[in-house]
């Protein structure tokens, strides 16, 4: 197996050139995969394809099946039914061949070992690893290399786990809620590292319950709910799918508000003082109809927020999953 010469600069955009015995098999393929724990169907017949080089977010509330999906993906669990393939092989084979790296959710740092020792060891278990210095650099750990892993802050320890995941230079990297419990600064640094790794032509799958993160850092978002994908697309596509959540606001200018509810697309009308707020599933039609009535003063169309989209897709009620989302990527 030949790998591209290790780039001193992670900003390369060329996809990795790998002669691949498995041809064009997608990086990840789930076919009707199901997994139950007792009476709970954690993953309920999941179909999923991730192309090589894609960065995909697995988005869902707690308990939506994200972690089980990831456990199946990594071969930590076997599906009860259906199949999971990575690069056309079973997860165990792909992991064994060193094509997969993972950052698992739970875990305390390994005791009594330095960052460099740990990353170097992880690299050694893979057939064609990154140079240790490069792995440390990608994860932003160069200055901490000599420190003991069990004496780092939460954000630093998270970076160590990321470095362990990428040390072997795997083609697919799987991150289970990588930024849970990180502060804004650490999050930003983490995503920078993740994107640098993705830009090398690698496939990245991460799970999150922060919508803004999924939208900002993934090419594609898979919304998971009750063990199934309920939506699949870019943040923009998801917003359009659930566009019935759009809001059209307009000044009434003394006009009566009766009849507004009968306009095309309108699902609900709310009047506050002289201003009407129309919830519409077809904002274009609604605006056109308002224009025909001459009611366009102060007209304003608000696309649904990602939170609205998420709620519409999952049929969830409060609390909003992204209520505690970091502000950095908020739109």
């Amino acid at each position, binding site marked *: 197996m030949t790998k591209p010469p290790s780039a001193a600069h992670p900003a390369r955009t060329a996809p990795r050139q790998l002669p691949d015995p498995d041809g064009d098999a997608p990086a990840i393929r789930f076919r009707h995969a199901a997994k139950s724990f007792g009476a709970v169907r954690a993953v309920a017949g999941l179909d999923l394809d991730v192309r090589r080089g894609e960065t995909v977010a697995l988005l869902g509330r707690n308990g939506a099946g994200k972690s089980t999906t990831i456990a199946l993906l*990594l*071969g*930590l669990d076997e599906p009860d039914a259906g199949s999971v393939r990575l690069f056309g092989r079973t997860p165990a084979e792909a*992991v*064994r*061949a*060193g094509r*997969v*790296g*993972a950052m*698992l959710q*739970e*875990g*305390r*740092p*390994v*005791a*009594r*070992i330095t960052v460099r*020792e*740990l990353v170097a*060891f*992880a690299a*050694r*278990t*893979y*057939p064609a690893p990154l140079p240790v210095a490069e792995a440390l650099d990608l994860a932003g750990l160069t200055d901490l290399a000599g420190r003991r892993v069990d004496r780092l802050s939460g954000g630093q320890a998270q970076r160590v*786990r990321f470095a*362990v995941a990428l040390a*072997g230079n795997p083609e697919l990297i*799987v991150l289970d809620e990588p930024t849970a419990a990180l502060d804004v600064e650490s999050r930003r640094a983490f995503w920078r590292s993740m994107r640098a790794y993705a830009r090398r032509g690698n496939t990245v799958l991460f799970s999150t319950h922060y919508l803004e993160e999924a939208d900002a850092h993934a090419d594609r978002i898979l919304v998971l709910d009750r063990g199934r994908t309920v939506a699949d697309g870019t943040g923009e596509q998801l917003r359009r799918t659930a566009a019935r959540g759009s809001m059209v606001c307009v000044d009434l200018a003394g006009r009566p508000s009766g009849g507004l509810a009968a306009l095309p697309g309108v699902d609900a009308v709310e009047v506050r003082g002289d201003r009407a707020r129309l919830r519409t599933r077809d904002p274009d039609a609604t605006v056109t109809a308002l224009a025909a009535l001459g009611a366009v003063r102060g007209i304003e169309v608000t696309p649904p927020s990602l939170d609205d989209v998420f709620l519409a897709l999952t049929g969830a009620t409060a609390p909003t999953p992204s209520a505690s989302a970091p502000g950095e990527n908020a739109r």
Partner: protein
Amino acid sequence: MITAYVRLEVRRTLRDVSFVVFGIGMPVLMYLLFTNLGGVDPEWRTASMVAMAAYGALGAALSTGTGVAEDKGSGWLRQLRVTPMTPRQVVTGRALTGSVIVLPAIAAVLAAGACVNGVRMDAWQWAAVALVLWLGALPFTLLGIGNGYRLTAQSTGMVNVGWSLALSILGGLWFPVEAFPGWLRSLSGLTPTRRFAELGQSLAAGAAPGAAAAAVVGVWALLFASYAVLSYRRSARTV
């Protein structure tokens, strides 16, 4: 790959202050104490040296299992499952680690015997005693690993300490079996520790190790190995 893993784990163990103090310092201290209080018996100095080295090896071997339980609890074993290392390689690496970390305790007690207590043996005897102690510690490493895969970190620590105490006292590693009442002495003859020490003690006395001792150690080795394999099979897929 296994070498790298063994190196990592040995490093982690030797950096554990409590392992160094209790795993290496304790047997040496107890040896010097038990052989210098109340008169000097050169024969007991030699026999006790072997017994205490065996005790040190026993403690270190079992502590390998405590390490396994900790790594299971911290998620490190799970992380290893998503590297190209197979669970089998991990458990083999652990057993090899156990074989390495029993060495300091054995060496320290033998050194205390030679340097402080003036134990004199032929060079081949020193080598043979050390070799037997080293190889004979493997069953206890397997026992520790069995406990480690089966139990939580806390209970593994307790259970291993319990095993260590029971096997040391019953096996006459601390006090000579000659001081035991008859029935206890017969029981002692069935313990792996008694026979493990006996193998080394016959060599130290210049005699060939007895077949009975080797047979008892062998049977226990098989038992502990099966226990380790069963525990490992039961939990390796779920860590």
